[in-house]
């Protein structure tokens, strides 16, 4: 755990030493706040489902920006050799990086918790559903990070890593649109693969084990794939 923490701290330091972290934090806070105000003002409903949908969509844009260089930069600058010749397991490197980025994601999402307290203060809204929605949002962010880390481990160029992450995340996000054009088994497969199918349940406060399994297994799958990429580098 000590080595995982050391790598996570290194990643956080690298993020906060670059302007990217501050730009993402600033933009996300502004965008989320504007949409929160607009949604509450227009819907006149004390619920966060629509706000979550906006935050979810913005994560598709933000996550590749901070995952793109996680391995590709190390590969290009030669520092991957430093990590891989230290007595550190490949999985510890992967988990350290995942932990670092997950903490940063928490910094991005944590300010949105204020919406929960605002609605709690001024209305009698479904708090459990909102908390469950936050769980879905965080899990989705972790899944996007795991995918971004995996794609970055395959690339030497940050741009290629970012582009491939955007491609996969957009595909995951919009897959549900293809469901209407398919039938039978394919329709079920696309329905299950689409990230929106599962976040929708979270955001409306519905607990289904299959949704939890989808995110947790997806995160583990991509982290293990990254470990394999390091092993067979």
């Amino acid at each position, binding site marked *: 755990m000590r080595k995982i923490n050391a790598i996570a701290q*290194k990643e956080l330091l*690298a993020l906060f030493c670059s302007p990217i972290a501050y730009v993402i934090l600033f933009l996300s806070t502004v965008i989320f706040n504007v949409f929160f105000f607009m949604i509450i003002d227009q819907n006149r409903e004390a619920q966060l489902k629509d706000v979550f949908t906006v935050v979810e969509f913005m994560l598709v844009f933000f996550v590749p920006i901070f995952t793109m260089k996680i391995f590709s930069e190390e590969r290009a600058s030669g520092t*991957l050799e430093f990590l891989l*010749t*230290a007595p*550190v397991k490949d999985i510890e490197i992967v988990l350290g990086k995942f932990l670092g980025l997950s903490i940063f994601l928490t910094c991005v999402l944590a300010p949105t918790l204020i919406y929960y307290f605002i609605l709690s203060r001024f209305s009698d809204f479904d708090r459990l559903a909102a908390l469950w929605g936050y769980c879905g949002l965080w899990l989705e962010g972790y899944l996007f990070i795991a995918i971004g880390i995996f794609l970055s481990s395959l690339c030497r160029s940050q741009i290629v890593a970012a582009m491939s992450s955007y491609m996969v995340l957009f595909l995951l996000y919009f897959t549900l649109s293809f469901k209407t054009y398919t039938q039978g088994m394919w329709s079920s497969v696309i329905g299950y693969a689409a990230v929106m199918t599962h976040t929708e349940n979270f955001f409306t406060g519905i607990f289904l084990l299959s949704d939890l399994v989808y995110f947790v297994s997806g995160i583990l799958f991509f982290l293990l794939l990254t470990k394999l990429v390091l092993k067979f580098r």
Partner: protein
Amino acid sequence: MIELKNVCKQFGSVEVLSQIALEIQTGEIVGFLGHNGAGKTTLMRIMTTYLPATSGQVFIDGKNAATASLAIRAKIGYLPEKPPLYPNMTVNEYLTLAGRLHNVRPRDLKGAIASVCAECWLTDVQNSPIAILSKGYQQRVGIAQAIIHNPAILILDEPTSGLDPLQVVQVRALIKRCQSQRTVIVSTHILSEIEHLATRVVIIKQGTIAADASVEEVIRTQQSNTLEEAFLKLNRGRSPISC
């Protein structure tokens, strides 16, 4: 002790190392000499377990690199050709990271950093970001991370490449200080470096060992006056300039 048994390495269809057999005893200072692309870096990377050998075996203190890579890495300090530095970190932060990754106990870490900083003449820049340091300082930071855990084996890949003459002298002096307690393997294509540092020279030519002896012995067996002459004789036919 380091033992390599018939180590071969292929990248696709290209054979970079062929049947390398080598034994390095504890406390030896061995210089790997060869042209660019001879296979020195690949051989070092195999020793550090960064790369697996295509065939053959590598043993470090009796441990097989293929099965006990973590134990082997704990015994080795490695400086790649390009120092693996994070420019946004300060020297202190970087050495703290290196120490934590190399199993230095938390209570010993401060002392270890102070000790390597003193040893590598880095004390005055400990709190400076690596990005603003000169190449010579950066090289010394690279050496400091390689010795932070007091490894029994130190592997340095072209530690003086790209440095100005004064920095070369400083880094050589630093390596000399390091070698008093360790097995040191230095790769270079600068012949004078080997003469200054190594007690034994291994000349690698197109992925095979062309010579493995003391500097004096290599000069004598090649009927030469200098190591440079011996090296050129061993590599005759490779370069358009024959001697």
